[in-house]
């Protein structure tokens, strides 16, 4: 069986992941809408997942994929809880702009 990486090269996957990850970070920093921030986080997660899978193929080892599977489970839980929190914040504050979340002020 031909390894796909022979044709594409692991470097390209790394590059792609980096770009995706950076876009995620940029989104987190740039947007103030909590939902978009959340989406950016998902993008970052996916960037990492992608890298895992790429290296899993590269090493011919299933562990990377197993890890991605767990990370997806965690992500699902996280999104569920996170969005629930956002909803309750929205209910209380009437907005989900992260600038309003200043309860951490010392």
């Amino acid at each position, binding site marked *: 069986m031909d390894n796909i990486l022979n044709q594409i090269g692991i470097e390209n996957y790394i590059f792609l992941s980096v770009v995706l990850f950076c876009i995620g970070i940029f989104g987190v920093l740039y947007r103030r809408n909590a939902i978009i921030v959340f989406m950016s986080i998902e993008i970052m997660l996916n960037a990492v997942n992608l890298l895992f899978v790429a290296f*899993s193929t590269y090493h011919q080892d299933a562990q990377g994929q197993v890890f991605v599977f767990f990370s997806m489970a965690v992500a699902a839980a996280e999104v569920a809880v996170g969005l629930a929190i956002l909803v309750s914040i929205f209910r209380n504050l009437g907005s989900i702009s992260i600038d309003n979340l200043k309860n951490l002020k010392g």
Partner: protein
Amino acid sequence: MIHIPDFAHATTVQVIFCFLAFITVITAFLTIFSRNPIHSAIYLVICFFSIAGHYLLLNSQFLAIVHIIVYSGAIMILFLFTIMLMNLNEQREVHRPRITRLGAIVSFCLICIVLITIFINSKPIVGEYDSSGEDFQSIKVLGKILLNEYMVPFEFASILLLVAMIGTVLLSKKEKLNK
């Protein structure tokens, strides 16, 4: 170094990769930049699909399917529902002060530079990579691994999801005031 595809002699796989990568990056950007959260969500779905495409390209069918089910299905539905629940529209979002945006851009550039520098500086991979021909990522094999080697974490994952479900229900329940 970054392998620059030679478009003239590109194989099908390479073309597909480039295409998918292009879609992934573009939709990711659009997710962040579009004003309307609904649009963002839709771009994000497309992004997730393209990532699933990458998974398929890498021949990990199981993950591709799970990814589509979890991300493009469940998570995106959750996002959409939430957005609609809140009835957000673009006017609500006020742009951040310039200094913040500048900071965001600066740090974005910074992290890009750092990561890419690392990437460039790291040792290049020498030679071609041959697969051993062993099946390691078919659904069957993964299923065996998950339920043998990783059984306990697997069960914990289910507990995690259960807890998350309960937590979500508890959080989104309306608090009864004055009681």
